């Protein structure tokens, strides 16, 4: 099977127009000692039917949250998605368009970017947003790199251990290349330690990074954390799950300088971790240091409203080695899903959905805490839709038995990030976990001692 349309006769006509006998003649520009001869060592072609059957067979062994109650979160949360999102995004004019380099031919995409930027700023309490970033972890990195540009003489970044371990991992990798020191500050009873962060963030620190709700589910008391950053002039970077911002006061209200994170849960399935969509919002005074695309409204010669990509001189195709980022690709299609998702839920619905998460998680947590042998690891801390449970046996064994004996995909075994937490399970309970799933989970845990 092939997607080439030209017939052999047409190819012959085209070769004649070019003035050569065969495609081999055209390929002769490749020096002989560079040529690959023979057949590529790849598997044979499949027909459309064969292909569908093959992939179905290949992936049949997967255990999917589609067929099982699933309480995994740890940075990837499943939420209700209206049917209209799929239908609209399936319009080929959206999904087969390229980057909107020609505004007159891309007003659709550009307008949705402006809508997305507006929604993200209103959710986070910030002033400017870009068109999206690869994912939540790289969004944290980009926020930090931005802070390093704003504070161009700084040589240190401070991060709370409540930030997602993938984001901390990325920070380690990126900052090592730039000879910037990364200081990680441990949590106290699951929450970020404001005095310790302030102490670490002495002069020469570009940013203090926290996450709320943090990786262990704890909603942070943001004001002292933002103040800890500002005490010595560092910028405050807050990673936040946007869905939580239906009920949580936005980081912008506490004075955060950048708010970033993973927006995949808004209208996008988890897709085994990608493609996701990251977001980054900031203060307008720092817009010239933002990475990646930004859409802005203007007018045409007749005064008609138009949307364009703006502040383009920040970007790699113009500024090259001095660009604010090397990023070219955004996660436009995922951001579009999130935009339509936010529009459909709307002002009230967004809050309601957020409240459902809060209610279900608290309902589940209260019941699990009553099961002998189980408890809440950070009982004094506030949480949104995820919480850390202490388990009577190793968390990985709890998970194994949940699936084997009850058909439930359990939580995240925290022993994977911290051996001292091997008897702790991170459970996410969202609007995608109806009451009967919570009942089933509680009943199952009662049998796992």
């Amino acid at each position: 099977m092939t997607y080439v349309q030209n017939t052999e006769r047409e190819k012959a006509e085209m070769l004649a127009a070019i003035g050569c006998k065969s495609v081999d003649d055209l390929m002769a520009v490749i020096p002989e000692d560079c040529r690959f001869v023979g057949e590529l060592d790849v598997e044979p072609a499949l027909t459309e039917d064969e292909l569908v059957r093959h992939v179905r067979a290949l992936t049949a062994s997967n255990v999917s949250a589609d067929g099982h109650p699933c309480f995994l979160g740890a940075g990837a949360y499943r939420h209700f998605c209206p049917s209209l999102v799929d239908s609209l995004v399936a319009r080929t004019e959206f999904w087969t368009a390229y980057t909107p380099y020609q505004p007159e031919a891309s007003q659709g995409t550009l307008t949705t970017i402006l809508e997305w930027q507006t929604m993200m700023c209103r959710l986070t309490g910030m002033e400017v947003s870009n068109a999206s970033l690869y994912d939540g972890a790289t969004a944290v990195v980009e926020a930090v790199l931005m802070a390093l540009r704003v504070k161009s003489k700084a040589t240190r970044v401070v991060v709370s251990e409540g930030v997602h371990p993938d984001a901390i991992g990325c920070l380690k990798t990126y900052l090592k290349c730039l000879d910037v020191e990364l200081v990680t500050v441990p949590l106290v009873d699951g929450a970020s330690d404001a005095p310790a962060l302030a102490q670490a963030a002495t002069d020469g620190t570009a940013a203090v990074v926290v996450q709320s709700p943090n990786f262990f589910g704890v909603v942070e008391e943001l004001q002292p954390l933002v103040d800890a950053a500002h005490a010595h002039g560092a910028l405050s970077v807050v990673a936040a799950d946007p869905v939580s911002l239906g009920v949580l006061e936005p980081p912008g209200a506490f004075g955060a300088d950048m708010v970033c994170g993973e927006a995949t849960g808004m209208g996008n399935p988890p897709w085994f971790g990608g493609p996701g969509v990251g977001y980054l919002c900031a203060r307008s005074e720092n817009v010239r240091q933002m990475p990646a695309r930004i859409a802005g409204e203007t007018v045409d010669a007749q005064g008609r409203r138009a949307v364009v990509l703006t502040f383009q001189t920040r970007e790699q195709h113009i500024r090259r080695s001095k660009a604010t980022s090397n990023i070219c690709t955004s996660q436009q299609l995922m951001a579009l899903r999130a935009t339509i998702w936010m529009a459909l839920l709307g002002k009230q619905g967004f809050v309601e959905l957020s409240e459902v998460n809060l209610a279900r998680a608290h309902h589940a947590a209260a019941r699990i805490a009553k099961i002998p042998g189980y408890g809440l690891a950070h009982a004094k801390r506030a949480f949104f839709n995820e919480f850390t449970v202490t388990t009577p046996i190793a968390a990985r064994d709890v998970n194994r038995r949940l699936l084997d004996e009850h058909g439930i995909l359990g939580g995240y075994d925290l022993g994977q990030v911290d051996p001292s937490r091997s008897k702790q399970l991170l459970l996410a309970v969202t609007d995608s976990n109806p009451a009967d799933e919570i009942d089933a989970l509680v009943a199952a845990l009662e049998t796992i001692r």
Partner: protein
Amino acid sequence: MSNPKDLKYTESHEWVRVQGDVATIGITAHAAESLSDLVFIDLPSVGDDLSAGESFGEIESVKAVSDLNAPVSGEVVEVNGDLEDNLKDINDDPYGKGWLVKVKLSGGTDHLLDAAAYDAHVQEHA
């Protein structure tokens, strides 16, 4: 194109007007024209040191960005603060209201081009 005879120039299209030990620096009409619609300029602050041949700021149009290269060495004594709101001055009056910074010279100016040499340079690269 003819450029003022009393100024000195660089191949990277900056001009210098020397009055005593103070040099006024700007970009040439040719540079302003090729950048067209200017939208942003990043200039040093009073007290900063400029080093001949090195970048001392940036100037941007919508789709281009250009380094400003210091034609001479010296300490910045004045910055054209009006430019921020009137970047058009650089296009409209590059050798007058469109000046960028004034520096107190700490080095020579012999390495600079005179108007004739600069005109020839522009012609050659047209």
